[in-house]
């Protein structure tokens, strides 16, 4: 019986021209998104490699200079995009891509792509995730909104009742009919996308398990919308009313709630502005040794001379200026750690507040999970930023120590290309899937909660109908 209902439902969907048209539109858009995303991804990767190479050449070809001068000249590190960014670009356009690595200062990432954009991008970005997360629920609503209302409007409702069709079987049949259509659309698209991502040469391994989990997240999301659609269709008298209600739910979930919660987060937990950050830095940096101001390190001079049993700095077996710069650098680092932990926690607080919107909108946990799994969320941005900061400390220490050990106090020393060539290497690895899932446990919990509640909703229909 269930299978027959599902089949009938499914056949009806195929017969309806507008469903076919909508399905076709989804496939075409998905294709366009995949093609443009791939092209964009490959171009960005080329540009990044090219720029990184240019910076590397800059660095190697710089003139001979004091190694600490070279630390001021610094280098840039460009953030690579994971290959799953092809699906969901997440915050990549909105976060900086270039990290300036220099002495004394930890910099916020520069060159945000969004700064070079027209207003069009604010409407949404044509990526597979945009189709899968924002538009796909609309398709579900379209094929399911009149699942029950059409029986009422067409007069077949009474017929079903007179044939003693058990309501739970009817419900299950309708549910299966809609779900099969959605999966029939999703599975081939998802497989095609997997193949393309697999074929792209990119950053990070392509792990099938990881990709499948992403697929499961999307599927669970669709189940929520399928359930909601059927519930609304059940309780509506007219198809039009069902549709308007579902549309309102969709708009609130995908468009209104995220913006409202972002506004609330900006209002309740504003980001510190540049002045506040500068002040925070000044407070954290007061006292301590300034690597460039010898008078701030008199005590240190005395201690070091005592330790080495020498009378003057010139007698030390190393260049005290390099040592002082490195000690000063550690004070700088400490102050920046303090400042950046504040900025980081301000961002975390905002994100936690936005996450509360997940209680009203299943879109939010899924969007967050999707970005996290694609390594394009703000956590990944910070992860990279922290890796860059650790590298920066190594990089500056290397140069200061070169000054320290390659010369004696008071000498003029210019380092050359051999020193530039031997700078520490930067490497970054994406966190493993376990780590991502652990960080996303809150969103996973919310997603499962939504799935559970929507199924409970369906069950209440069944029990109600049992009485009728």
């Amino acid at each position, binding site marked *: 019986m269930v299978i027959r209902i599902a089949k009938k439902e499914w056949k009806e969907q195929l017969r309806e021209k507008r469903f076919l048209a909508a399905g076709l*539109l989804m496939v075409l*858009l998905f294709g366009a998104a995949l093609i443009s995303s791939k092209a964009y991804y490959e171009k960005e990767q080329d*540009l*990044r490699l*090219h*720029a990184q190479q*240019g*910076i590397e*050449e*800059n660095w190697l*070809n710089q*003139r001979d200079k004091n190694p600490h001068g070279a630390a001021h*000249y610094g280098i840039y590190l460009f953030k690579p995009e994971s290959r799953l960014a092809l699906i969901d670009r997440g*915050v990549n*356009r909105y*976060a*900086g891509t*270039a990290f300036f690595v220099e002495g004394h200062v930890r910099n*916020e990432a*520069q*060159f*945000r792509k969004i*700064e*070079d*954009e*027209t*207003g*069009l*991008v*604010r*409407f*949404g*970005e*044509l990526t597979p995730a945009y189709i899968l997360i924002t*538009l796909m629920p609309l398709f579900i609503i*379209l094929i399911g909104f009149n699942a029950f209302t059409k029986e009422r409007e067409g007069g077949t409702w009474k017929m079903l009742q007179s044939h003693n069709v058990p309501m739970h079987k009817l419900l299950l049949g309708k549910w299966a009919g809609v779900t099969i259509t959605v999966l029939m659309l999703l599975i081939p698209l998802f497989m095609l996308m997997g193949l393309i991502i697999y074929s792209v040469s990119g950053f990070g391994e392509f792990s099938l398990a990881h990709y499948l989990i992403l697929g499961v997240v999307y599927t669970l999301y669709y189940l929520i919308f399928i359930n909601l659609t059927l519930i609304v269709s059940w309780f509506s008298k007219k*198809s*039009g009313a069902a*549709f*308007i209600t579902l*549309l309102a739910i969709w*708009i609130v979930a995908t*468009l*209104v709630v*995220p*913006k*409202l919660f*972002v*506004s609330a*987060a*900006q209002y309740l937990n504003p*980001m*510190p*502005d*540049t002045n506040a*950050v500068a002040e925070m830095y000044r407070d954290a940096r007061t006292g301590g040794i300034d690597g460039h101001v010898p008078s701030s390190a008199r005590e240190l001079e005395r201690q070091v001379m005592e330790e080495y049993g020498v009378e003057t700095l010139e007698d030390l077996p190393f260049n005290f200026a390099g040592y002082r710069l490195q000690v000063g650098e550690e004070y700088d680092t400490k102050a920046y750690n303090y400042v950046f932990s504040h*900025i980081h926690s*301000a*961002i975390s607080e905002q994100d936690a507040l936005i996450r509360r919107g997940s209680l009203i909108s299943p879109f939010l946990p899924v969007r967050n999970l999707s970005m996290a799994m694609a390594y394009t969320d*703000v956590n990944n941005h910070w992860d990279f930023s922290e890796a860059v900061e650790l590298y920066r400390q190594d990089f500056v220490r290397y140069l200061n120590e070169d000054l320290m050990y390659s010369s004696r106090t008071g000498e003029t020393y210019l380092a050359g290309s051999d020193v530039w060539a031997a700078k520490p290497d930067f490497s970054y690895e994406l966190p493993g899937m376990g780590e991502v899932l652990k960080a996303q446990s809150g969103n996973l919990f919310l997603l499962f909660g939504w799935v559970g509640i929507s199924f409970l909703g369906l069950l209440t229909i069944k029990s109600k109908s049992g009485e009728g």
Partner: protein
Amino acid sequence: MLSKIIHLEWRNLTSNRWLLISFLLLAGLILLATLNRSYHQEAYLMKVDEVRQTQSAEFQNFVADHDSVTAGLKEIDNQRINPVFPFSLEVRLTPQAVFEPTGLGVLAVGQSDIHAGIFPVRTFSDPINKASVFYNPTTDLFGSFDFAFVLVFLIPLVVIAFSYNILSEERENGTLQMVMSQPVSLMAFLISRLAFRFLILFGALLVVLILSLMVAGVSVSGNISGLALLSGFAALYLLFWFGVSLLVNLFGKSSSFNITALLGVWVVFVLVIPTLLHVAVEKVHEVPPRSEALVEMRNAEEEAMSLDRDEILDRYFMDHPEFIEAAEGSSADEQWRELYEFYKWFYIVRQNIAEAVSPIVDDYYSRLEEQQEFAGRISAFSPAVVLKEAMSSLAGTSPAHYNHFHTSTELFRMEWMETMRNKMLREQFVILDDLDGLPQFSYAPKDVNNGFARAAMALSLHLLAVCGFIVLFRKKAGL
């Protein structure tokens, strides 16, 4: 007859509880959106004020220090901050570039959540790093809640919910025959009903908007021309959606068909076309990545710095002998001379770097402008995009405004650099009377009237196209 239709309509509307609730909800959202943006704008203006106050305090300190130093009452070890030495202007009286939104800045967030509106400009500021503030990329991704969002995204849905069954309902309720028997054509009946609904919605929208602006403390009388333009755009946009709704009704299908078809049109114009246009803009008008400019700038910097100092100075004075003469008249003693020599080199090197990179920087900004121009032209494909862009132009927060701001900043930086360089080359000390003559940053918002005419034209064309289709299908439908 008309009055009867209107009377009936009014009763229909007021008796529809859902409609009233959604109306109130919408009014609440508009108020919220306006207050939200006005909070941000006020916070921004307060920051500007704070920076200006700090600046004027610094200025007074500077003058006081200058007086003490020239009177011989005070000695300053670090000449870089000594107010008689020109370099101190760079660090103590650093000019600030300040972006100013228009009076209607609260209407549309535009790019104002992305760009820093206020930052210091010095000779050695980076011409392509746009001095971003500390940001949370997630909030920028989802975007802020503003009136532009309500008008562009949500209002069309209200229009659709308001009119999708204007004809199909009569048929489904069996009242169509009754309407047909009246001494008024069906078309006139439909149009008068829709016109009435348009007026109600439009009127309510204007009232709510104006009240919200008043609550947010925005002067209505001071922005009357901007508001008039906005109402014109909004009216055209609403009429377009009412027109689409009428058109779909003329197909003579069921209400449920109408609503799905109308939603399809909404999805296409509001969600699909803009993303496709964005892809097109990126493909056709690519902006050179700043990372490339960065590499060039670093090369230029290394090259300029690696030349012999004396050689640079000699070469420069060969081309500019007037400065040798000017410096001879300077009252600087030997110690100052040495310092001036260093800074002469410093500013000449800065100029060389600026000259080397200016083609790249100019190219970057002009390509950005071209891209925005192109996006403006192709946005005509979707009335939603046209309206949103027009609103950020009205608010003074459009990408074009920020581009103009950044190029003005860069021009100002050049002017400032030249002033500083000349002072160093002439070995001039800072005199208090000079301070008034220092370059001042002033930002004149970009003239976008051109864009408004284009927006009005695009919106009218869309409306006309819909009207054309209506006339066409009216014949087909036999009305």
